[in-house]
């Protein structure tokens, strides 16, 4: 029976990545920690675990590499080697390499052999060993056929308390060949003095067969030191010296009977190479999640209550006959339904909780990011993290990672000044970057604060004017000036540093955050520092939506995007030569998007004054969406259109309404793009249509 242990590979990878995280965090915290030895021990154990596991599952390259790391750590924990900054830095790099190796093996990709060899070589140099000394395996050079062995086995009295049982050892021997046993009870004391837990018996065994000495010796592997053992070759009854192969006679040395055994050194190819797993398409995101049992228990309780409510309702339904739907019954039914609504809501909340993970998973990578940056730049920065237990949806967290990295890098690069500059301005040499997270309303708020140079408003403004994003005569509030930072193509970095990247930064960050249903703002005081505030919905799967109708079709507009919904006043409609329409909303002119045109559906109303205008916040300002009717508002579950179909411009997803029909969820940005491209194509059609009476 061959057991396939590849089913445990994923668990191994998971625990190894966790171990790596411990290693990295511990290494980063080493200098400050009092209990350095303890910390080193933890790091050692983590490396040891990875080494053992990777060897067990056949990932020999990983095992070899980790072994070198482990050796270095072992010396450190035994106080044979000082914990130097260089060693720590090298080990940090080694954890990077190891992480890469694990990922590469997990994804069935090629290993980065060069980097591995490089770092492994550095580790070996530090250890003072020749790189990759090949283990010279000595396998016992056994003789050919033997005819038998005589074994004298005299256990020491305590042998039994090692859990070793002579009988099982004899069984093993008996399996090797013909065996006869004779027992010697001379050492047995008188009954009164007999210690029942001790062994006073010894044995003499004769073993015949084609057996090598090593096989015999192996049986007594474990009891070395717990017994007296003599293994002697049986003398052949017939001396066949003439028949002996002349070549072998020289090698056929008599082996002195020993109690020492030659170990069967593990050959490296003893195990089959693990089959390269068939390439499977990479899952878009991690597909499993750890959930605390308490969350599951809550779920189980709620489902229980749901079942009770359901059976109560069905009972009501059953015993009802045609005539018995009276007022009393209806009241009971309504009670039951409201209970159902309560159960469903609670269940929904509980399930959403399952996808929630503490944001520490996202925050945890930053100590390393800050550490590395400080090394490269020479700046001194302290990272302060708070609110790391604040929970948010797993997928939201995965998607917020990149924007967070960009913002932290931005704070370090553009915000925090060099130590000299800081000292000159009376600030402490070490700058501070703060990461904070908390819940507010139905959202999670993440703040990235720095006590650096702050944002120079005038520079932003002049850059904005230069790029044509605002005109000189515009009067902007501070808020609006800072907001310019997030517009595409905006970068005030004089050179492009490799840390923050080009001007593609901030607008991409904002777009990513918007696509999660959130937003980002910045406030700053020059000379004091800046604060970036991100607001995100707690979950991606559910949306508060405004139901609207266009013709026969119903759509959902995300409530968070809606500024207001108004009836259209004819006087405020302005047409432009290109055929687009603008609506004067208080002080500003906003473009009108006729949904029925952009979506190519029939509308009930073509005259703007007959329908309604839903004013939404788009990427580049307010937009008015022209619809026939406003229906209710409701929470909808977002379902993907792409699972079975494809992404559709203007549509971000779909949902199933109470009556079982499908309603599409509008993607505001997409809709606006559609409208713009249609306007460009048919500049005059729209103008004509709007004149036509429906």
């Amino acid at each position, binding site marked *: 029976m061959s*057991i396939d242990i590849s*089913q445990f590979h994923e*668990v191994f990878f998971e*625990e190894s990545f966790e171990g790596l995280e411990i290693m990295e965090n511990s290494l980063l915290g080493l200098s400050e920690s009092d209990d350095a030895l303890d910390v080193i021990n933890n790091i050692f154990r983590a490396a040891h675990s990875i080494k053992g596991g990777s060897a*067990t599952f056949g990932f020999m390259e990983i095992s070899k590499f980790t072994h070198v790391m482990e050796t270095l750590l072992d010396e450190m924990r035994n106080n044979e080697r000082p914990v130097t900054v260089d060693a720590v830095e090298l080990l940090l790099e080694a954890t990077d390499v190891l992480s890469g190796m694990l990922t590469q093996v997990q994804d069935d990709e090629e290993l980065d052999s060069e980097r591995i060899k490089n770092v492994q070589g550095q580790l070996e140099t530090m250890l003072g060993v020749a790189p990759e000394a090949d283990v010279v395996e000595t396998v016992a050079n056994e003789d050919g056929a033997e005819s038998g062995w005589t074994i004298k086995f005299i256990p020491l009295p305590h042998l039994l308390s090692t859990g070793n049982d002579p009988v099982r050892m004899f069984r*093993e021997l008996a399996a090797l060949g013909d065996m006869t046993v004779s027992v010697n009870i001379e050492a047995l004391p008188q009954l009164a003095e007999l210690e029942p837990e001790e062994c006073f018996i010894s044995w003499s065994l004769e073993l015949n067969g084609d057996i090598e000495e090593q096989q015999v010796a192996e049986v007594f592997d*474990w009891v070395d*030191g717990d017994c007296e053992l003599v293994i002697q070759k049986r003398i052949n009854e017939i001396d066949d010296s003439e028949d002996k192969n002349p070549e072998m006679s020289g090698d056929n040395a008599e082996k002195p009977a020993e109690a020492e055994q030659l170990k069967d050194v593990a050959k490296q190819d003893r195990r089959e190479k693990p089959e390269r797993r068939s390439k499977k398409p990479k899952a878009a995101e991690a597909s499993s999640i750890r959930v605390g049992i308490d969350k599951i228990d809550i779920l189980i309780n709620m489902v229980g209550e749901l079942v009770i409510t359901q059976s109560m309702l069905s009972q009501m339904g059953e015993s009802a006959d045609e005539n018995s739907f009276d007022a009393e019954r209806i009241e009971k039914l309504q009670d039951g339904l409201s209970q159902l609504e309560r159960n469903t809501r609670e269940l929904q909340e509980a399930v959403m909780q399952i996808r929630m993970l503490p944001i520490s998973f996202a925050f945890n990578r930053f100590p390393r990011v800050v550490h590395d940056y400080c090394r490269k730049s020479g700046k001194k920065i302290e990272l302060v993290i708070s609110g790391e237990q604040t929970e948010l949806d797993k997928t939201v967290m995965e998607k917020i990672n990149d924007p967070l990295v960009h913002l932290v890098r931005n704070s370090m690069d553009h915000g925090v000044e060099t130590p000299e500059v800081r000292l000159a301005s009376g600030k402490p040499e070490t700058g501070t970057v703060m990461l904070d997270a908390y819940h507010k309303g139905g959202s999670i708020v993440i703040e990235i604060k720095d006590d650096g140079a702050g944002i120079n408003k005038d520079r932003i403004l002049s850059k904005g004017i230069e790029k044509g994003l605002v005109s000189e005569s515009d009067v902007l509030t501070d808020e609006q000036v800072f907001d310019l930072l997030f517009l595409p193509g905006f970068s005030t970095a004089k050179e492009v540093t490799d840390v923050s990247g080009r001007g593609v930064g901030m607008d991409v960050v904002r777009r990513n955050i918007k696509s999660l249903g959130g937003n980002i703002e910045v406030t700053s005081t020059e000379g004091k520092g800046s604060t970036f505030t991100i607001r995100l919905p707690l979950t991606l799967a559910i949306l508060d939506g405004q139901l609207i109708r266009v013709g026969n079709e119903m759509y959902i507009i995300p409530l968070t995007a809606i500024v207001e919904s108004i009836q259209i006043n004819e006087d405020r409609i302005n047409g432009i030569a290109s055929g687009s329409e603008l609506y004067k909303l208080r002080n500003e002119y906003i473009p009108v998007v006729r949904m029925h045109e952009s979506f190519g559906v029939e509308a009930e109303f073509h005259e703007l004054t007959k329908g309604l205008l839903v004013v939404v916040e788009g990427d580049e300002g307010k937009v008015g969406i022209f619809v026939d009717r406003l229906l209710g508002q409701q929470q909808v579950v977002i379902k993907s259109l792409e699972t079975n179909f494809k992404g559709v411009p203007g549509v971000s997803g779909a949902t199933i309404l109470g009556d079982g029909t499908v309603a599409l969820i509008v993607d505001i940005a997409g809709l606006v793009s559609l409208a713009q491209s249609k306007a460009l194509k048919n500049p005059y059609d729209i103008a004509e249509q709007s004149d036509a009476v429906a």
Partner: protein
Amino acid sequence: MATILAVDDSNSMRQMVSFTLKQAGHDVVEAADGVQALAVAKGKSINLVLSDVNMPNMNGIELVKELRALPDFKFTPILMLTTESGANLKQEGKAAGATGWLVKPFNPEQLLSTINRVLG
């Protein structure tokens, strides 16, 4: 067949060992470190203990000592899961009272053949 206590802080190792032993018809009790192992072993009739050496809270060597002090475990076979480089650990293990060892890395077949040596 036998009830085996498997102690290892590595999830993947523990799962692999547990699965292999269960496939062979044994009952398996698991623990992630020495402390858990002692707690979990109470009141159960254990025929064999498999324990890793390097574990947090209480390592394998200490666990062997603690187990041997319990009347139920005086003669129970206890096998240490050691790595090749830990030659002196084998001696330490024996000194603590371990029955024998199994060298990591091992595959399921090696695990089972070693188990069978002890359980017969």
